[in-house]
């Protein structure tokens, strides 16, 4: 059955957005990512204009992350204190990132910087997570690697401990300076604004590897933070660009809210290493897809203006 989308000005088979919502919602509930880096290109592939695809996806993520946060909160896997500090940093970073985009656009090489940032960040995060989780799954770490790692960790750890304003994050069972989540949240905020994505796939590894939070709390906390970011983005997109398609968002969230719940349930049955290696695999597949897009001759040399 087809439905007409009043803002996208196109007609779509309802099974497509519901199915996409279900799949991306599942990933959201499992890994704590919004899934914008997957959903937006898929919507464009199915004929949705790029600006409407990005804005409507953020509307859908509001629903999926509400559903996911709720599911994780019920089992005590959301660190609200950490989430709020990361949000504060992300908010400041977002403002800086938007200004950076303006400067890059004025210099005329915005697209190059955006694409390269995307490929490098995804590539580095994907490869690091993949190798790290593979090693911990196989438990074949040699003494030398372990020693080197411990040394590195202690150096980073010592630096983090030396910072002022140390505070305890009970839910995650860790102690950090409040500056750490604010600065890291800001860093992700800058990159997310430059790349035009929510930044969940960057935030999750940062929480795991730098903040040393337990993987299951990471997923719930990341969703909590994504929820607020996407509420702001949805409202601003609707208000300034008129690019949120309400009907498409409802179709997507029909799938994604259920997918997020299913993801949260599945996530509880998987080990942290299994979760990490799956997320790493997805991030690497997306990286390879972008590299292909960059190197293979495109079928069309023109595309709709607006969005990234």
């Amino acid at each position, binding site marked *: 059955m087809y439905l007409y989308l009043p803002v996208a000005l196109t007609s779509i088979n309802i099974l497509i957005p519901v199915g996409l919502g279900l799949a991306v919602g599942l990933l959201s509930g499992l890994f704590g990512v919004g899934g914008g880096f997957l959903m937006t290109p898929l919507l464009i592939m199915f*004929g949705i204009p790029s600006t409407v695809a990005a804005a409507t996806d953020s509307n859908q993520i509001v629903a999926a992350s*509400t559903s996911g946060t709720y599911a994780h909160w019920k089992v005590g896997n959301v660190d609200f204190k950490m989430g709020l500090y990361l949000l504060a940093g992300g908010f400041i970073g977002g403002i800086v990132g938007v200004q950076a985009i303006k400067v890059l656009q004025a210099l005329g090489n915005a697209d190059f910087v955006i694409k390269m940032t995307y490929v490098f960040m995804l590539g580095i995060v994907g490869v690091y997570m993949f190798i790290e989780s593979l090693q911990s799954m196989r438990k074949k770490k040699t003494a030398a690697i372990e020693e080197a790692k411990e040394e590195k960790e202690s150096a980073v750890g010592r630096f983090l401990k030396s910072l002022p304003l140390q505070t305890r994050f009970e839910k995650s069972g860790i102690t950090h300076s409040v500056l750490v989540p604010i600065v890291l949240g800001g860093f992700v905020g800058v990159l997310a604004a430059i790349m035009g994505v929510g930044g969940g796939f960057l935030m999750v590894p940062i929480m795991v590897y730098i903040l040393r939070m337990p993987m299951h709390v990471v997923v719930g906390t990341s969703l909590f933070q994504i929820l607020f970011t996407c509420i702001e983005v949805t409202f601003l997109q*609707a*208000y300034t660009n008129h690019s949120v398609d309400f009907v498409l968002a409802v179709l997507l969230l029909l799938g994604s*809210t259920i997918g997020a719940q299913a993801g949260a349930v599945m996530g509880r049955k998987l080990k942290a290493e299994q979760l990490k290696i799956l997320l790493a695999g997805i991030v690497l597949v997306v990286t390879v897809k972008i590299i292909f897009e960059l*190197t293979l001759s495109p079928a069309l040399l*023109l595309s709709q203006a607006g969005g990234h």
Partner: protein
Amino acid sequence: MKHFRFRIAECGFAAMAALVFIFTLAFAGTASAMLTARANHDHITIDFFYHGSSVSVRGMSDPNVDLVIKMTSPEGHQALKQKGKVGGLLWMNVGQLKFERTPNFYAVYSTKKLDEMLNKEEQEKYVIGYPALGKHVEVTPVANEEEKAKWFDEFVKYKEESRVYASSFGKIETKVNEQGHQEYYILTDWPYQAAPGDYLVTVYAVKNGKVVEQAESKVNVEQIGVVKTLATMAKNSAAFYGLLSVGIALGAGFGVGLVFRKGGGSH
């Protein structure tokens, strides 16, 4: 009172002028023959279940003419992202191209290949066919005519992919009736990608490489009901629309969460 008399005189003059104009048009029509055009489905409504439509155009003409049917939206300007190779290796957006005087929708159907029935000057004069449209539009920034032609070809490819540009021949059915007139008919798919608005259907009668007569009809595409309400709200009440979108998403997320809690019962 004087002012009022003046207004009456002014109106009278306008009415006279209109009558003369209509009479001239009618006289010109009968003098040059008898081309007619009628679009059967001239008011297409877009509701929730709209997935495109079909439009047929029929009419009569002199028996010894070829026909061209052109459907277009009003001309405007469009900006599109332009992909190019950076460093001889990577494909990415390298800028924006502006296409001026281009319709968003352009479909041309003819009884024969355009070049076999209509000379180049006439194609350009009436903007019939892609080559003529290519000459008509302005593309910026381009260095020369060659580059303009290249990017116009890409523009047509992009538009054909979106199903809003089409050009073909041989689809118009014709037959000569008992009175010796040629009756023509074409049924075309109306793509759902064609935006709401007014579309002009122009039928050209062609003889000896020249347009000898033309007739027009209109197609109006309009959103109705909830589709119209939502589209209008998104534009005119953007803040409310944004809050509504966020509110529904939050409600749906919590709602599904509650349903799962009741269903699962384990936590």
